[in-house]
C-alpha cells in the first residue's frame, strides 16, 4: 500500500533553521525534516551559547557569582539575581531585612513585566504583526528607566546581594513606579484590542501544539508554559518565598478560550494576564514597603557550613532552580543551574511533529525560550 508521498516519489527536505534566524529567540538551531511544508521531525540543537557558567561557579565565591546570574536570563536579570541571592541565603542561613525583600519583590515583578513585554512583542513580530513589538518596547523603556534609577544599568543589573540589595531605592522611585503602573495598566487592554483577539492571530495560535496538563508536568514544563496547560501551579503561591505570602494576587491559568486548553494561545494569554497580576502585586508592595536597612551584615567572603540546598523561584520563563553544594570553603563545590527554558525544550521535538513550518515559529515563541538560560 503506497502512500501518496511514495507514489509521487517525493522526498523529505532537510532544512536548517540555523543558529542565525530571526525567530529562534537566540542562537538555536532546529534541524527540520519536512515533507513540503509539513514537519516530519524537528530536532533542536543547542550549545552555541555555552559559556561554562557552572564551571565558573566553582571558581568564584558566592558573592562573586552574582554578575554571572545576570547573563543567565538577561531579559529577567533581576529575577535571576534574586534567585541566586535567595539560594545562597538559604544555604548559609542568612536572612535579608524586610525592606530588602520588598525591594527584591518590586524589582522582580517589574522585570517580570518587562520580560513578558518582550515575549509578547517578539511573538507578535514573529507572527508578522511588527507594530505591537514597538509598543511593548516603548513600555519597556520606561521600566528600563526605573531600573536605571536603582542600579545604573538597563539590562544586566547585578542589583541583589547575598543578604539584601546593593543600594536603597533612590528618592522618587516609588512615585515614578506608581506613575508607570497607572500608565501601563490600560495598555494591556489596548494590546488585547489590537492583536490578542485579532482573528488572524487567533487562527495562527489556536489548536497549535496542544500540551495536556499531565504531559506538561511529566516533561518538566514550568512557569507560564505549565499554567497555559491548565495546571494552577505558581511557586509564588505554592512554595512561597520572600514576602509573597503577604501579597494578594491570582494565579493565571490557561482556559482554552480560543481553541484547545494547552495550545499556543493559552500560553500567550497567560503571559498577558500575568502582566496584570504583576501590576497588582507591585501596587501592594509599594504601599506596604517598610523603612529599614537594605543589606544584612554579611562578611565579604563568607564560608557557609557544608550543606546542599535546592532553591527554586518563579522567573518569567519558568522555574529557575539553584542546586548549590557547599563543602565549607569559600568556593561552592557544585553549582547547578536548573533553567526553565532548558527543560521546556524537552517537549519540543514531540510537540512539533506534524505541524507546518510556520507553526514551528509559533511554538518557539509561545514557549518563550531564551538561549543563555538553555546553554548556560
Amino acid at each position, binding site marked *: 500500500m503506497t502512500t501518496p508521498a511514495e507514489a509521487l516519489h517525493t522526498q523529505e527536505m532537510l532544512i536548517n533553521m540555523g543558529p542565525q534566524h530571526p525567530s529562534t529567540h537566540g542562537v538555536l538551531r532546529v534541524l527540520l525534516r519536512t515533507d513540503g511544508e509539513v514537519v516530519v521531525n524537528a530536532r533542536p540543537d543547542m*550549545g552555541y551559547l*555555552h559559556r561554562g557558567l557552572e564551571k565558573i561557579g566553582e571558581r568564584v565565591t558566592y558573592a562573586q557569582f552574582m554578575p554571572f546570574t545576570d547573563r543567565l536570563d538577561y531579559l529577567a536579570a533581576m529575577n535571576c539575581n534574586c534567585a541566586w541571592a535567595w539560594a545562597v541565603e538559604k544555604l548559609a542561613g542568612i536572612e535579608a531585612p524586610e525592606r530588602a525583600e520588598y525591594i527584591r519583590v518590586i524589582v522582580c515583578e517589574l522585570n517580570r513585566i518587562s520580560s513578558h513585554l518582550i515575549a509578547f512583542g517578539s511573538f507578535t513580530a514573529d507572527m508578522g504583526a511588527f507594530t505591537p513589538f514597538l509598543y511593548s518596547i516603548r513600555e519597556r523603556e520606561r521600566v528600563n528607566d526605573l531600573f536605571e534609577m536603582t542600579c545604573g544599568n538597563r539590562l544586566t543589573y547585578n542589583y541583589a546581594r547575598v543578604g539584601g540589595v546593593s543600594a536603597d531605592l533612590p528618592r522618587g522611585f516609588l512615585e515614578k513606579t506608581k506613575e508607570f503602573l497607572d500608565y501601563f495598566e490600560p495598555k494591556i487592554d489596548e494590546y488585547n484590542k489590537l492583536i490578542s483577539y485579532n482573528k488572524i492571530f487567533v487562527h495562527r495560535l489556536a489548536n497549535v501544539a496542544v500540551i495536556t496538563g499531565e504531559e506538561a508536568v*511529566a516533561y*518538566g514544563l514550568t512557569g507560564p508554559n505549565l499554567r497555559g496547560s491548565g*495546571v494552577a501551579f505558581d511557586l509564588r503561591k505554592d512554595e512561597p518565598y520572600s514576602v509573597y505570602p503577604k501579597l494578594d494576587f491570582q494565579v493565571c491559568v490557561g482556559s482554552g478560550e480560543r481553541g484547545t486548553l494547552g495550545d499556543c494561545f493559552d500560553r500567550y494569554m497567560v503571559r498577558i494576564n500575568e502582566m496584570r497580576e504583576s501590576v497588582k502585586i507591585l501596587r501592594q508592595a509599594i504601599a506596604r514597603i517598610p523603612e529599614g536597612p537594605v543589606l544584612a551584615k554579611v562578611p565579604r567572603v563568607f564560608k557557609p557550613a557544608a550543606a*546542599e540546598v*535546592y532553591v527554586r523561584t518563579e522567573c518569567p520563563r519558568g522555574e529557575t532552580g539553584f542546586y548549590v553544594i557547599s563543602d565549607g570553603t569559600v568556593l561552592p563545590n557544585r553549582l*547547578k543551574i536548573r533553567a526553565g527554558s*532548558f527543560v521546556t*525544550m524537552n517537549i519540543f521535538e514531540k510537540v512539533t511533529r506534524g505541524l507546518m513550518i510556520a507553526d514551528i515559529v509559533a511554538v518557539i515563541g509561545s514557549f518563550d525560550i531564551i538561549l543563555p538560560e538553555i546553554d548556560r
Partner: protein
Amino acid sequence: MDPKALFDALKTRFAGAVPELQAEGFRPAFVVVSPDALLDVARFLRDDPGLRFDSLMCLSGVDYKERFAVAYHLYSMTHRHAIGLKVFLPRENPSVASVDSVWPAANFMERETFDLFGIDFPGSKDMRRILLPEDWEGHPLRKDYKYPEFYHGIKI
C-alpha cells in the same frame, strides 16, 4: 511527607537498596539509592498513590572527589512534597539506568550530565552530547578536567 517516614517506607519495600538518608544540612533531604535499584525506586515513587512524585525538578551530576553522584530532585504536584534521590557512582565508567521512561523531563538533563560529566545512562532514548560539540573530548565539569589547548586547530 516527612523524609524519615518516606525513607522507612522505601527501606521496607526495597531492603538493602536504600542504604542511607541524608537529612541534616540537606534541603530537600536525600535518599541514597544503589544504582541498580534506581529505576524501580523511581517508578515506585511516581506511581504509589500516597507519594505521587510526578515531577522531576532537577537532575544533576556531582563530582565529589572520590566518586560521582547523580542527584534527582523530585516534587509531587498532587501532594506538594519534595524529596531527593542520590546515586553514588564510581569514577571509572560511571553509569546508572536512565529514568526518562519514568519522567520524560529527564532526557535533556541526562544528556547534559553525560555531556559534562561522562556519566552514562543506558536505556535512554537519546544519549548524545547536548551543549558541547559532538566531537568534543573530555567532560568539563569533572574536577580533574584538563582544558584542551586546541580545538580543530583553533587555539582555545
